């Protein structure tokens, strides 16, 4: 996958000859770039479903025992019906191919647990997680980059040391515990934040357009719902962001320090440019490339964190759905979650690569 920091495979790095231009559509670098991305996405999808499928089938756990009650298990007719209903009576390769065939038609199968199409389940739960993870990544980028720049500019002073400890605490604190503490302190004791869920219990959700309560409420002009949705988002998003803020602070600091030592920054300073111009136009712009890479990777860890944060704040999102599906070995649901998450991963990588081009003309679609 796109790991700009990883050394290239080309021998004697740096002087590798440029590949000869290929004929046809592949000659267009943009087309080639997109084709490669789509191929990666398809392979990843197959890989994710295959891994999930193999994992859940090779191991002793049985979805039948996980999904049917004790009494139903004693009745062979019910067990056989459950197996037939979910295609569990067919050979494994057939089961997998059937699933892939359905996938081509946009059919992700039926959840064994909710008895609904997995696609409907995902459509219901994904938006809550997008709001949460999106809020957290925005918070992390703003705070992490700001902290990192301050730490680099005040290197080895007291503020740098304090920020170092803060960022290390951020990456060391157990997310589930921080969520509990935040919930206890801000909701239970101080009562300054709303409790669990996505909006206040006495409100009804805004008319469904995007599934994002914040956006939908704003679109419908229901500002009380909007503020309730935002209020319910702040604490979980901050808790979720703790880890990535720490990560981004550390990386921003070293990226900025790296750039500060460059000759062109020294030259800019020598010719008397104001510090603000040097910082934003010279330093931050170069430092953003490694920062964006880390932010892309950090998004993956954010999605992991949603499982724990959503379980504490009782937000019905994809993390909770993944937890329920995994513990009941609900295979189609787990694969659906895997596909969504894998898709997000591919998308984030794409965004990161495009951003490289925007920030640094040297790497534009190369």
């Amino acid at each position, binding site marked *: 996958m796109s790991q700009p920091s990883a050394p290239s495979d080309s021998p004697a790095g740096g002087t590798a000859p440029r590949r000869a231009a290929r004929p046809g559509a592949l000659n267009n670098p943009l087309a080639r770039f997109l084709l490669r991305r789509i191929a990666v996405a398809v392979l990843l999808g197959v890989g994710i479903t295959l891994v999930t499928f193999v994992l859940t089938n090779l191991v002793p756990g049985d979805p039948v025992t996980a999904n049917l009650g004790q009494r139903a298990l004693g009745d062979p007719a019910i067990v056989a019906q459950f197996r037939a209903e979910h295609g569990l009576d067919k050979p494994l390769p057939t089961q997998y191919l059937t699933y892939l065939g359905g996938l081509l038609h946009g059919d992700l199968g039926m959840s064994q647990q909710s008895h609904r199409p997995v696609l409907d389940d995902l459509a219901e739960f994904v938006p809550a997680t997008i709001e949460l993870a999106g809020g957290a990544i925005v918070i992390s980028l703003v705070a992490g980059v700001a902290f990192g720049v301050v730490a680099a500019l005040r290197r080895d002073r007291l503020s740098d040391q304090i920020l170092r400890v803060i960022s290390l605490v951020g990456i060391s604190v157990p997310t589930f515990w921080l969520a509990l503490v935040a919930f206890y302190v801000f909701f239970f004791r101080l009562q300054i934040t709303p409790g669990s869920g996505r909006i206040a219990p006495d409100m009804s959700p805004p008319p469904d357009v995007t599934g994002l309560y914040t956006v939908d409420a704003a679109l419908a002009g229901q500002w009380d719902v909007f503020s309730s949705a935002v209020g319910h988002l702040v604490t979980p998003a901050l808790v979720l962001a703790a880890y990535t803020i720490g990560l981004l602070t550390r990386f921003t600091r070293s990226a900025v320090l790296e750039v500060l*030592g460059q000759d062109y920054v020294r030259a800019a300073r020598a010719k008397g440019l104001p510090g603000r111009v040097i910082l934003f136009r010279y330093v931050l712009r170069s430092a953003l490339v490694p920062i964006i890479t880390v932010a892309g990777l950090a998004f993956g860890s954010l999605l992991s964190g949603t499982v724990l944060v959503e379980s*504490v704040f009782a937000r019905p999102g994809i993390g909770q759905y993944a937890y329920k599906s995994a513990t009941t070995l609900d295979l189609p649901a787990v694969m659906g979650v895997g596909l969504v998450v894998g898709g997000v991963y591919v998308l984030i990588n794409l965004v990161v690569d495009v951003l490289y081009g925007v920030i640094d003309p040297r790497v534009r679609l190369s």
Partner: protein
Amino acid sequence: MRPHSGIRVLSRLPEAWRQPLAVVGGVVAVAWLLIAAAAPLLAPHDPLAQDLPRLASPGPGHWFGTDQLGRDILSRIMYGARVSIPLTLLLVVLSLLIGGALGACAGYFGRWVGEGIMRLADLVFAFPTVILAMVVAAALGASLTNAVLAVLIVAWPSYARVTRGLVLGMREREFVLSGRLLGFSAWRSLRVDVLPNVTGPILVLATLDIGTALLLLSGLSFLGLGAKPPSAEWGAMVASGVEVFDSWWVATFPGLAILTVVLAFNFLGDTLRDALDPRTARAIKERAL
């Protein structure tokens, strides 16, 4: 990096130790190891005995309070160190060995084997760690051993990636090539010239990974996919505090135990990385000029 920088890193260690964060991290880590070793001597109560008043707030006799079954939380945390810390260390050593070996092979022998290994690593990376670990743990059945196995499956790829990158960079170096020209076999070259030069960075990664592994392991236990009651495991103890929300001490202290262990190893790892990272080292050198 110069030849045998693994040894150079070691010689730079005393410098790193003068960093206050590293000292704090080292002291806390050693303290936890001692607590784990001497828990039966230190703990004021039996961690499983339910003979104290239930949900008593912190005070004399039970400094961290008691849980809903009347067990002493301080004693349970001390015994919990014997569960979490050895398992985490074992986990990191195993994923280092597995990931490091696979990564070194991928980097040194390249081509098909290497591609295969790295695509597998990519696949694991594409899955959010908790979700994949959750699937594995749930499929294998909830138990502490299976949780360790689940974390192992998601933890090895980062070692494979880093080792491969380092080995790739090392493979073309003159001293490695001259070894090959002198007739070293691939294995001997890998063992004698390449591996000693990549161990330093990988050990730093492992130090930083101890925290991540403990967070993941206790996270799985928190979700009910790891240690089973009545076992005194920190993640499971935090989870039991969710049920008795008013009694803040039930969840708070086990969480602080996790935090301090993870923080200690991150303090250590972060300082070690600074002692190692050539960029930072260069920046320090420039300042000295």
